[in-house]
Each structure stands twice: as C-alpha cells, then as structure tokens.
C-alpha cells in the first residue's frame, strides 16, 4: 500500500516547509562550499558577510523545523518565546564571538 495515501502530499504544509528547507540547504551549500573554495587566501574579515548569511539561513531553517515539525506554533506562549529566545541567543553568541572575540 502507498504509505503516503490520504496525506495530500502536495497541498500539505509540512511538504512545503520541507521543500523550502532543502532549497535553503542547497543555497547555503553553494555559498559556503564550492564558491569559496577558490578564496582560500581570503581574510576572515572578508568572509564575515558570507558567514553571517550562512548562520542566518541556519537560524531560519531551525525556526521552521521548530515551528512546523515540532509543532511549537500551536504551543503555549512560554514555549514559543523560549524557542525564539534560544534561536536569537545562538545567532548573537555565535556571530558576536566570531566577530569580536
């Protein structure tokens, strides 16, 4: 039997989120991998923009996973805020320490 029966796979919000996640994964893969292999001599300073974009994409992806896959969008406010506060903290801590430490 078809394991995807009755799930309306193409109208399903979960599938849309998944497609977006895969697309952003490929985008950040292109950004962080192949395109910059040439730039081995580049200064870390110059790379900061690329790094920020990559981290931002990761944060957006994590937010989507939390919101739609972990169903936090339907959770009480304290959990939604805890998750968002965590995401924001990760972005600030990682980029802040990377830039200013």
């Amino acid at each position: 039997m078809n394991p995807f029966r009755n799930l309306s796979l193409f109208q399903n919000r979960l599938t849309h989120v998944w497609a977006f996640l895969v697309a952003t994964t490929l985008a950040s893969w292109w950004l962080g991998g192949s395109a910059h292999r040439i730039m081995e001599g580049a200064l870390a300073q110059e790379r900061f923009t690329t790094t920020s974009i990559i981290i931002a994409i990761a944060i957006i992806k994590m937010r989507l996973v939390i919101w739609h896959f972990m169903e936090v969008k339907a959770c009480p406010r304290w959990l939604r805020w805890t998750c968002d506060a965590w995401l924001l903290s990760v972005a600030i801590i990682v980029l802040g320490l990377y830039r200013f430490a």
Partner: protein
Amino acid sequence: MSNSSFTYEQASQFTEHLQGPSGSAPDKPIARVPGQAAMWFFVVGDLWIFTCYFACYAYDRAQEPMAFLQGQLSLSQDLGAFNTVLLLTSSLLVALCLKATRKQQHTQARQLLLMGGTLGVCFLLIKAAEWYVKIEAGLPVMSGQFFIYYFMFTGLHFMHVSLGLVILTLVYLELKKATAGNLAMVEAGAVYWHMVDLLWIIIFALLYLM
C-alpha cells in the same frame, strides 16, 4: 482517545489538553505541549548545552580563523549537504507519521516511521564513512583545534541520532500494539527526532560552511 490508554507514560499535566475525539484538526492552535513536558525540559536543556559548545567554537575560531578555514575546506561539503537533506527528509517522514497516528492510521504511521528511521541509519553510515576517510588519512585530531571540535560535535550528534533510533524503535513497537496506541509517546519521539535534525542544521553550518 482517552488518557487511560497511555501505557508507557502517565499523561503529563499538559496532555489533558490533547485532542478530543479523533479527527479534530491538528493544525489548529490549541495551546498545549506535544508529547511529554519532561521531553521538552530535556530538549530545551540539551539545546542550551550545545549552545555552550557553539560559543566555545566561535570564540576559538576567531583566535585562528585561517587554521579553522583550512580544516573546514578539507571536509566534504557535498557529503555534509547530502546528509542534511537525508535528515530533513527523515524529519518530514516522522512528522507525517505523527499526522497518520492522529488519524488512527497505525499501519500507515508504521510505514512512514520505518522509512524515516532507515534514512536515520543511512545518515549514521555516511557519517561513519566520512570519519573513516579522515582517520585513514592520518589521525587529524593531533593537528589542531578544528578537528577536535569536528569529532566532538559530529560524535555527540552521532550519539543523539543513535539514541533517537532507539526511541523511534520504541515508538514503532507502541504503534504495533492493537490498542489505540500512546499518542503522547509518538509525539515525544517525534519531538526528539526533530531536535536531532535541528542540531545537525546548525552543526552543518558551523563546521562545514561558516
């Protein structure tokens, strides 16, 4: 579905808000915590523990950016990206499994869960192959901080995926029972599995791409 059918776990204080008679829309905000409150306690704490690791990594990386960049470029971004897609797909399948469980389609839920778990096993095999190639080329942990972070992060994540596979197996056995099954347990297992996915997304960005 009544709370009395919860065999593995006493219904937590939040699960009394579980959906009423089967078929109520799962997408409607009903302000409850999926699974068990204890699982969310674990997830949030675990994420903060990993945040401490990430903070140390970002700090150390800023000290010697070129050495870290060189280490990073010696990893296979292609395999990392492929593994990310594997885990994202696995997460989708587990999320669909939960949807099927809520519709009381337990056979279908088991099929989806089995596919999701198989992708998890594939992730582990690829990760092990990646380690093997690195170690064959000479134990790289001696050659700098980056590879210590690489092996610690991927190793801890590997452990989390393995634990997740154990949990998914327990969920599978639960879904096999003739009774309505324990919805809270399926939800908690799914939450854990998505957390593993979540951690990989940020580890992939930090180690392979940043």
